[in-house]
């Protein structure tokens, strides 16, 4: 009984370690191929559109809702000790340092990460990836590198957009709905948010973008077992990249104090 349990734990741990190793090798190869010819510029642009432009609606919705709720909630709390004037600072600091990049990361993981894994997974199980090899084309370069780059670059811009829109949403609620003085609100926001807060947030977003691209591609590229496998890869891509985003968020926050 105990032996069985230990064996199970051992096997699970080994499988996890093996998978981590495989992910690290995959990342290493992706970085290596990123800087070697040929460059598939057309694929990159197409992916930037698919991952970036098409994610704008969800990112906008999430950001504006978060900014508005944040203003509303902090107002309720801060009023209790008469610090309502600070909500501008709370909203802009939270949006830039934390919520802009993290929520954008999670939304893009759900949307673009999933679709990457599903697309590459389908290509794997229908032998399209093998077909690329037989046509003397490296699928890591042709498929993975453009997605990795597009995801990293576009996450940066989407996060910047998320920060901006979230702050606007907070401003709207704080000033128009709750009646805070607009000048006080703006001053609080601007005086308490530095350029480096914004950069911290944007650096995080680059890391999250790389995570979404790499995990989405890794899961898709290593799909096995038909349609069911594609489903598993897709779910796996979303779960793993969301967890990694949340875990890395803590360490990046600690590092970029």
């Amino acid at each position, binding site marked *: 009984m105990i032996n069985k349990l230990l064996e199970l734990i051992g096997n699970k741990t080994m499988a996890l370690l093996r998978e981590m190793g495989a992910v690290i090798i995959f990342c290493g190869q992706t970085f290596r191929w990123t800087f070697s010819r040929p460059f598939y510029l057309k694929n990159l642009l197409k992916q930037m559109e698919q991952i970036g432009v098409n994610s704008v609606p969800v990112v906008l919705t999430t950001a504006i809702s978060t900014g508005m709720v944040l203003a509303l909630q902090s107002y309720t709390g801060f009023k209790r000790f008469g610090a309502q004037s600070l909500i501008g600072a709370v909203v802009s600091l939270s949006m830039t340092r934390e919520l802009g990049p993290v929520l954008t990361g999670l939304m893009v993981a759900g949307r673009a990460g999933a679709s990457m894994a599903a697309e590459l997974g*389908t290509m794997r199980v229908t*032998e399209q990836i093998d*077909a690329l090899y037989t*046509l003397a084309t490296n699928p890591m370069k042709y498929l993975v590198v453009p997605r990795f780059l597009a995801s990293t670059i576009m996450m940066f811009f989407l996060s910047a957009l998320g920060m901006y829109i979230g702050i606007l949403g907070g401003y709207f609620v704080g000033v128009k709905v709750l009646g805070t003085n607009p000048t006080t609100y703006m001053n609080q926001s601007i005086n308490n948010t530095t350029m480096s807060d914004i950069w911290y947030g944007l650096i995080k977003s680059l890391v999250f973008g790389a995570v979404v691209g790499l995990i989405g591609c890794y899961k898709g590229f290593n799909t096995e077992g038909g349609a069911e496998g594609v489903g598993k890869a897709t779910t796996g891509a979303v779960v793993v990249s969301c967890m990694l985003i949340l875990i890395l968020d803590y360490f990046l926050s600690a590092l970029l104090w």
Partner: protein
Amino acid sequence: MAMIEITNLCKGFGSHQVLRGVNLTVEKGESMTVIGGSGSGKSVLIKHIIGLLFPDRGEVKVDGEVLNNLDERGLNDVRKKFGMLFQGAALFDSLTVWENVGFGLKQHTKMSDKEIRDVTTQKLALVGLKGVEDKMPSDLSGGMKKRVGLARAIAMDPQIILYDEPTTGLDPITADAINDLIVDLRKKLGVTSVAITHDMFSAYKISDRIAMLYKGEIQETGTPDEIRGTSNPIVKQFITGSAVGPITAD
């Protein structure tokens, strides 16, 4: 002269040993068909020939070069000698028919899109298709997909064509049209070809020689007539499609 030489090829996945010492030689210009049951390792075997899989032991030699020893560039040079038709055609579903057929030309030549389209039209005509250049693969029937896959396989004028179950999943008439096409292409292009199939009708029709893969080894190799008159009980059972004999369904 041997175009493909497979020596003592062994390959397993985890604890599952699929190939246990395959030996097979395909002469230049010859049409070789490997027959065997589902899951017997036919696809694994053919994937070794074009360097999609690599042996655990043994070696695969193509046109005098051992694939295991090649780096990425060397391997790609060898792969350019091949065209491969996949079982499900494996067309790129984000690209149109002509972009699929012209994929290799686009990647490896300096031809303009206009020139590539012209070649594409010509290759599509060879496989009996007209006016489908701008369709997406999802708009094609199974038989048409195979034809487009075949057009893509021959687009770069390969010396060797590999067919992974070219007739599986097609109705008998479409299947026979594909058989005719394979025979026809071979006459016109004079290529070496390796097909794998469990369709005996197809095997007899398209092959100069047939080899049977069973339990990870080649059981017998011979001309279609020799295979028809075989005394090997395993081969006999397989070609007559009998449930009674040394092979058991699992």
